[in-house]
């Protein structure tokens, strides 16, 4: 078996990219009979989301459902954008996601490197304690974290969103596993050459760890971008809300204007969908990695 977790995930290239050599010419295979309906079921909700966003409010609520909107009413998007502070939603989500990604990559790398390569007093006990936190569901932490953020004066702010998510035990665990698969000779050679430990981390270890870092970054980004519960608890003001909370607010405010709600939904999902379409391989590898590490 491959030593490196992401090396194993590399074989997942097979999952999303068909092999280069031309396949057997099976223009029709019985499997299509199964896969086509499945694809339809999986994509239909998204397709409907799009269709509804271009209809009028009454079309969106008519029976039978309208498949081809009159119009199409692109101005729904403008209306939706203006009805709630969508610009703020996007901005807040962007800040939230980027800050947590950067924070995780930075702090988890530092800690993971120390756990992987350095010997220091209390290291193993500390690591076990950190791992133990992975077992605790977020709901346990929810109320006290709210109180802590309140004491820090960060309630109803993006800072309050970010602070508890700047570093995760999962990231430390994952990066430590990865660092340990790197050949230690490279670091030892650098040490002999006089490089400081920090230098070794940044100049040698991290550049070799790009796949793992990308994996962690993507997982964290996706988690933050789609986060709902924590923003729900922490944020009161609409203009401070990140995207998913904003979307829920929109839905609450315009319950019967399905066309506008769907427009908002489309807008809020598009960034993630685009990133996914362009970075499929990374996504799939990241997701599979969480399965492989078991």
């Amino acid at each position: 078996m491959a030593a490196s977790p992401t090396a194993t995930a590399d074989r997942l290239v097979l999952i999303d990219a068909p092999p280069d050599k031309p396949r057997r010419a099976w223009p029709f295979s019985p499997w299509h009979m199964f896969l086509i309906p499945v694809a339809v079921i999986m994509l239909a909700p998204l397709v409907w989301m799009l269709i509804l966003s271009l209809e009028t409010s009454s079309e969106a609520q008519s029976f039978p459902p309208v498949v081809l909107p009159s119009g199409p009413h692109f101005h729904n998007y403008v209306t939706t954008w203006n009805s709630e502070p969508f610009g703020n939603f996007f901005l807040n989500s962007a800040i939230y996601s980027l800050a947590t990604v950067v924070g995780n990559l930075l702090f988890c790398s530092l800690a993971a490197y120390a756990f992987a390569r350095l010997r220091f007093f209390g290291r193993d006990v500390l690591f076990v304690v950190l791992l133990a936190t992975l077992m605790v569901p977020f709901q346990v932490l929810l109320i006290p974290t709210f109180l802590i953020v309140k004491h820090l004066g960060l309630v109803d702010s993006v800072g309050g969103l970010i602070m508890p998510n700047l570093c995760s035990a999962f990231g430390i665990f994952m990066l430590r596993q990865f660092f340990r698969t790197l050949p230690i000779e490279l670091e030892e050679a650098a040490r002999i050459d006089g490089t400081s430990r920090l230098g070794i981390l940044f100049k040698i270890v991290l550049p070799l760890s790009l796949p793992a870092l990308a994996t962690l970054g993507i997982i964290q980004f996706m988690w933050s971008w789609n986060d709902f519960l924590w923003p729900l608890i922490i944020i009161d003001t609409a203009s401070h809300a990140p995207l998913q909370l904003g979307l829920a607010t929109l839905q609450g405010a315009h319950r019967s204007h399905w066309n506008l709600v769907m427009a908002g939904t489309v807008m809020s999902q598009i960034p993630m969908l685009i990133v996914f379409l362009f970075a499929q391989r990374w996504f799939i590898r990241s997701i599979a990695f969480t399965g492989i590490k078991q």
Partner: protein
Amino acid sequence: MTARAERIRASDQRPALWRRVLGSEHLAGWAFVTPAVVLIAVFFLIPIGWALLLSFQANNLLAPGHYIGLANYRALAKDPQFRSAIGHTIVYTVVFVPVSIIGALGLAVALDRRIRGISFYRLAVFVPLVTSTVATGIVFLWLLDPTFGVVNYLLHLVGLPQQKFLQDPNQAIYCIVAMTVWGWLGFDVIVFLAALQSIPQDLLEASEIDGAGKWATFRSVVFPLLGPATLFLVVWSTINALQLFDEIYVTTRGGPLGSTTVIVYYLYEQAFQFFNAGYGAAIAYVLFAAILVVTLLQLWIGRRRVYYVS
């Protein structure tokens, strides 16, 4: 060589004490972990302990609470609404986990082949994973709308009676299962696909030569080797199922008639709508204990029956 020269020599070889301390691995190690440790201590370790303390308090999130011992837990044990929440959560979990895993296994097997368009089919299965739980809830709220949702329309076309779906106390929780399966299936499929593709081609060929047909090969060779992946997904799906919240909030808010109030939603109501923070913390700890017990049970059963290929 004079004694003085020897002393000078010796001190050349050992750097000054302060330098040794600052350059020591211990200091470096601690320096590196400090940011992470501080963050995790403040936002994980302290809350874990604080939540426990809260569960022994009556607290309304605004004023400091006062201790009431095990009263919250005792109340929980007698609370019929909590018991319903547990029931709903169990029903959800018991349906969600097998459906999503068996469905994902079948899909993974179907997707693990080289036919035309396979990358399109794979993409179609993975895309819902990227959408947020809120978006999923909103879209399914429309799809399953009793009056104008397209699902009822399709039923109408084939002559089946119209359903109330999310507005029917008996159907709502199953609708939630459907939408969360839709949203999460891709994850399970990816894990299964990775596992399927890690089975050496040799083994499948050997099995074929040994006289096994496709189904026999799957049953005797492929499925046993999927053991670790299956176990992982069972544990992972169960943990996630027990923590269901977002979709409930966006669609049914725990209704109709409380039929979709699951444990975490009940927690949310208690802590942030009725401001019974202590009660909420107690609920959280009960959930924690449940997750721990269920997970350990699953791992224990799994370890004995799953073969790990090294």
